[in-house]
């Protein structure tokens, strides 16, 4: 009767969340110490209960208890052990449980590391996090119970969606949720500050590393998802502007804006109101993303099954949380201004950064909801698709990339515009030279290649120029600066990857019989046929493609088409030879009879740089978060 035990711990977690939400908040309002002191123990208790719940569900998967409906729907006796663990978050109910668990872990972390903060602040922050947890745990119990029984138990389960049976997808959701949900910390601090009616730069300093860590995880999560789509879907693309991708990308964009505006508010006291609004927006967008993915409002390959009762519940919750926060913001937002600054200053540049990132987010939001708007206005079923996103994104991001090197080199408050310009002019010239060289060397797509080479070189050189100035002037580099430098270099690497693969990608699709060879851009692909192999829970048509460059054999690739035993779903696995300067990518299409197959071949120059850049950004965020300065904690505030 373990599943019933899981049910009970989940209900207890709900009750503890209610305690954590209500008593500390009321206590902070009335100044009751004992009530406020409940916040921490409640947070720990809730985490323990949710960990138990999660362990029970995992156990049900490991022993394949098909009397639990969720297990029967997402597992199968043939499912390999590794995927039994990840199947726990393979569908709506379990992934929502993971969501709540991650929230509890963040809450525990805040409870543990907030020792030096004033008691009312801790009580309010944990109380707000408790409210969020209360809403989601109730959602889980009322509409999406993972422990619902299916009696009598079926002999066989339906199986985990084969798309999710992949090592990359084991860690993708936890990483993504760490990021998504992590924005609850700055959000809770913003709400606490608004409730308190006092924004203190010292608490803001305390929240900065949290935002950085959450954003870093989100970056890794999104990059993993993109990498997975690249090798698993067999289309060779790495980003599709799919509604679910957008749902994770919107908080990322606002989170990036928040990182920067927090820095301004902490150091200069400016933009305080704006920073609070961004903190609310980042988490609200996480909630909106959760809603879009789970309500069935938007159709997407990744979306969970639609269920209107879930949609209504989570929409109501969304309305209360976002509406309440915005109302609170409008009523209580600080009407103060920090130190004044001139048009030519670091503040202005960061303002531009924020405006551009926020606009990009607005544009993604509009594009994502556009099909719904069109449907509501009776304009038919349409989707805006990549052309809209690609163009607008370029228009908004190009100026941002151009401005990156100026930021660190420009002083706060007032700067003679000529100074950073003079410092960067030679490097701009050099970057331009690189761009021109790329234009002439490019075998195809010269404009995009040139833009990628110039953009990447400009950001990289400009950022290194800052590093050099810094080291020469005082030889000291704080983790905060190092992190920033790495993240900006990550942008450079990403820009090169994204634009060069766009410009230089070559692909052909051809019917090949065994023994036939396809030649493309200096590579020869010899198709050596397909044989059938048996996997643990699938039968695979495994192709053999020998790749040669000149006379030298590079590699023997094995693209696959897997038919899963459970539902007959067919998945493709691309055969890839990864390389720092380009991937060779082979995917199997359809069998055409007589041993012939449709074979899709891509050469993807610099595609790895996309994920490498994202990784650098994430590492930069983590290093920044490790700066000791953030932990020199504020002396207690005097009222």
């Amino acid at each position, binding site marked *: 009767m373990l599943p019933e035990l899981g049910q009970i711990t989940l209900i207890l977690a709900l009750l503890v969340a209610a305690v954590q939400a209500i008593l500390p908040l009321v206590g902070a309002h009335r100044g009751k110490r004992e009530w406020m002191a409940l916040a921490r123990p409640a947070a720990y208790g809730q985490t323990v209960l949710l960990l138990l719940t999660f362990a029970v569900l995992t156990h049900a998967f490991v022993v394949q208890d098909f009397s639990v409906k969720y297990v029967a729907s997402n597992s199968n006796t043939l499912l390999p052990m590794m995927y039994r663990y990840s199947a726990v978050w393979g569908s709506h109910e379990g992934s929502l449980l993971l969501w709540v668990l991650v929230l509890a872990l963040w809450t525990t972390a805040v409870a543990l590391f907030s020792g030096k903060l004033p008691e009312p602040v801790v009580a309010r922050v944990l109380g707000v996090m408790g409210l969020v947890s209360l809403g989601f745990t109730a959602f889980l119990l009322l509409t999406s119970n993972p422990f619902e029984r299916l009696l009598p138990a079926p002999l066989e389960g339906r199986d985990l969606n084969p798309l999710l049976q992949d090592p990359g997808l084991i860690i993708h959701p936890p990483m993504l949720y760490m990021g998504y949900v992590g924005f609850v910390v700055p959000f809770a601090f913003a709400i606490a500050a608004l409730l308190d009616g006092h924004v203190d730069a010292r608490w803001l300093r305390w929240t900065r590393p949290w935002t950085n860590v959450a954003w870093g995880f989100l970056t890794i999560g999104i990059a993993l998802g993109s990498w997975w789509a690249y090798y698993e879907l067999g289309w060779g693309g790495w980003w599709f502007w799919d509604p679910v991708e957008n749902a994770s990308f919107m908080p990322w964009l606002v989170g990036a804006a928040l990182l920067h505006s927090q820095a301004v508010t902490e150091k200069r006291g400016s933009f305080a109101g704006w920073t609070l609004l961004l903190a609310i927006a980042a988490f609200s967008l996480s909630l909106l993303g959760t809603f879009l993915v789970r309500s069935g*409002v938007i159709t997407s390959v990744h979306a969970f099954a639609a269920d*209107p009762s879930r949609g209504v519940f989570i929409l109501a919750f969304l309305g209360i949380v976002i*509406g309440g926060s915005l109302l609170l913001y409008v009523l209580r937002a600080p009407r103060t201004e920090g130190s004044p600054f001139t048009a030519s200053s670091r503040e202005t540049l960061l303002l531009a950064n924020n405006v551009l990132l926020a606009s990009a987010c607005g544009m993604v939001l509009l594009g994502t909801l556009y099909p719904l708007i069109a449907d509501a206005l009776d304009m038919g079923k349409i989707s805006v698709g990549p052309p809209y996103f690609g163009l607008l994104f370029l228009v908004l991001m190009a100026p941002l990339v151009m401005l990156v090197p100026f930021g660190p080199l420009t002083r706060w408050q007032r700067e003679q515009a000529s100074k950073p310009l003079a410092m960067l002019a030679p490097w701009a010239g050099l970057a331009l030279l690189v761009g021109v060289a790329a234009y002439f060397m490019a075998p195809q797509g010269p404009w995009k290649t040139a833009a990628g080479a110039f953009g990447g070189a400009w950001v990289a050189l400009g950022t290194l120029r800052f590093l050099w100035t810094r080291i020469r002037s005082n030889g000291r580099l704080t983790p905060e600066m190092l992190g920033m430098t790495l993240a900006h270099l990550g942008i450079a690497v990403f820009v090169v990857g994204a634009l060069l693969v766009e410009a230089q990608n070559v692909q052909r699709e051809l019917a090949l019989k065994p023994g036939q060879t396809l030649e493309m851009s200096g590579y020869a692909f010899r198709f050596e046929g397909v044989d059938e192999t048996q996997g643990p829970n699938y039968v695979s048509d495994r192709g053999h493609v020998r790749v040669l460059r000149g006379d030298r054999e590079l590699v023997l690739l094995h693209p696959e088409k897997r038919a899963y035993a459970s539902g007959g779903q067919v998945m493709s696995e691309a055969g890839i030879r990864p390389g720092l300067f380009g991937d060779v990518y082979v995917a199997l299409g359809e069998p055409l009879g007589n041993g012939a197959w449709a074979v899709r071949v891509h050469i993807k120059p610099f595609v790895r740089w996309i994920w490498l850049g994202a990784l650098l950004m994430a590492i930069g965020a983590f290093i920044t978060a490790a700066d000791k300065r953030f932990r020199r904690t504020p002396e207690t505030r005097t009222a």
Partner: protein
Amino acid sequence: MNTPPPVVPEKSRGALVFAAVIIGLFFVGLMFLLAYGVKQSGRADRESLPSPLIGKPAPAFDLPVLHDPKVRISNKDLAGAPYVMNVWGSWCPECRVEHPVLTKFALTKRVRFIGYNLKDERSEALRWLEQFGNPYVLVIADEDGRAAIDWGIYGAPETFLVDGLGIVRWKHVGAVTDEILANELIPALEKAEGKR
């Protein structure tokens, strides 16, 4: 930073109110839009466009009978009177949910009730019918799921109504409930019988 912050002058109060109104309008608009979306998502025809087969002849097929694979059944054998065809598999948990509803319906003998066993192992399928009971007058087996493609079947459970002229009149994706039986299938069946 310790000096008391300057209060915003009266002039920019208006700007703040304006910003608040914009934020409010945006929020309310978004909520209405999402509420509309939630309402729409309940509509069965929203996700999948209505089956292109509705109003068209059922696809031709020729499949073995589950209980006796030597016997084959084609669409011609079923012509002449309406029939309801239910797609199921022993691997499908949802099928077990609708099974009691369908059994009750089959016992009324209102219409020929055909089972379409999709992508299943024969032994597993037979065991399943033994365990839960066989409401079907006849079960045809589509082991590799190839004929299912012609029917536009995504998975199980799905239920079709085909009239006496072999025209597909109604289709439902997902488990059939009592409400769906009463409000959709029976009226569609009455209409199909009336037309003949």
